[in-house]
């Protein structure tokens, strides 16, 4: 079973993603901040990471860099999710090596399509 690591500080959205991904047949670990995400990444070895850009304790870009340094997550595709509409954010995410980029509120069917395309 493919594994997804969710990094999302809003507990409700994290839960919705969890329900969605589990129903889609993925094994899911949910984390709510950068520290928790880093610790989990070390032990969990996910196949894909869903990463919120604005997080307590560090932004998603910094965290994505850290995932690159962790052996278990070094080459794992990262999908960025954000509620921000700052201009250039999508481009920045893509330049940071993102596998995809979604703005909140996202279309969950499109999101699943992207995930399935990457790791199914």
């Amino acid at each position, binding site marked *: 079973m493919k594994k997804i690591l969710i990094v999302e500080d*809003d507990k*409700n*959205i994290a*839960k*919705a*993603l969890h*329900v*969605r991904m589990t*129903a889609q047949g993925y094994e899911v670990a949910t984390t709510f901040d950068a520290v928790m995400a880093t610790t989990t990444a070390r032990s969990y070895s996910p196949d894909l990471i869903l990463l919120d850009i604005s997080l307590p304790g560090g932004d998603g870009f910094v965290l994505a860099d850290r995932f690159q340094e962790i052996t278990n997550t070094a080459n794992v595709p990262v999908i960025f999710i954000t*509620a*921000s*509409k700052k*201009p*250039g954010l*999508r*481009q920045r995410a893509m330049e940071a090596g993102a596998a995809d980029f979604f703005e*909140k*509120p*996202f279309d*969950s069917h499109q999101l699943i399509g992207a995930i399935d395309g990457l790791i199914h």
Partner: protein
Amino acid sequence: MTLSTAQQSSSDLICAELPSANHVRRILIIDDDPADRELYKHFLRADKSNTYEVEQSEFGQRAIDMNKSGDYDCILLDYYLTDIDGLKVLESLNENFTRSVPVIMLTGQGNETIAVEALRAGATDYLPKRHVSEESLKRSVNNAIEKSFLRNAVSQQTDRLKTKNRELTRKHDEIQRFYQTVSHELKTPLTSMKEFVSIILDGLAGPISEDQREYLELVYGSCLQMTNDVNDLLDVTRLETGKYSVELVPTDLISLLKCVKQNMSVISKDKSITLTLDIKDSVPKIPLDEQRIKQVLSNIIGNAIKFTQKGGKIHIVIELRKTQEELVCISVEDNGTGIEKEKLHSVFERLFQVNPESGFDTEVTSKAGLGLGLTISKELINLHGGSITVDSEFGKGSKFTVSLPLYWNNTET
């Protein structure tokens, strides 16, 4: 910001003090010749229409020191002084005092160079010593005081306006930041609402009845509407503060348009509206912000669907046109409610909206959005160097045309 504070601020601005007729004019005479000082004093006192209080000194430095304490209306300054020369005194007065006192420079006979220098250094007037008469002195002093009063009034006014302007800019920025925070904060609960509704609708929380499905679909629709509104709000604040930027990438406009048409046909089918696309020319790849152009086309086609009755028709045409420059034009024509002639010019204004049923209202009254869509679309197309135009006949339908330059050099922006 309320109307009352705006009114108050404009009245704040009119408060420059007008000198009254019986105001005692305080004059400082700096001249190393005591006879000359007496003469000027005599001339001034001969003026029956004004009262003068005269102080005098033979030293230039005194002018600077005395001006610190005395609130003079005018200074008569001799160029040739025993301590420092008149121009130095002028410079020092200019540097050290915010409120400028008019200075009349008294120069030697025929020394035009000094006169010019004095005026450059900030003297209000100059009088050649030998020509000083009761009449010329009176006229020069009167003019100098009047001129200086006006100059001070203008500079005070300018300072007030600058302060007001800074204050308004700060408030404006604060409001913009507030909007951004609000929109951002709204999106998080909106996302979870929409997600859980969609989870239930997809049957992931167990079976639901037909009624439940119908109602949840309504909730879902409202979530989508709210998403659009929040995004529009953010876009408008960005566009207003000039913080909006487009990322131009060579794009295949025809496949983009096909994709938008495909998405919109889901909504048009619900109203049994026929949506057709006519590709008249092949279009080369042009630099576009794909997301933004999708947003604009969805907005225009969405409006057409909104304002067209069931069973109506919407026709989209994409073609090349050559005017002064080469353009690619996308027109969206419907046979819906149309827009009244007198309202046509304001469709791109903020908060303008036509009531989908009657076509009568110009204010936002229905649940059909914030009325920001076309304003945003227009700005976005402008950022691409293009334009949007509208043509409409009330009761017959509307035609919106987006024109984008084929070859656009955006270095000037």
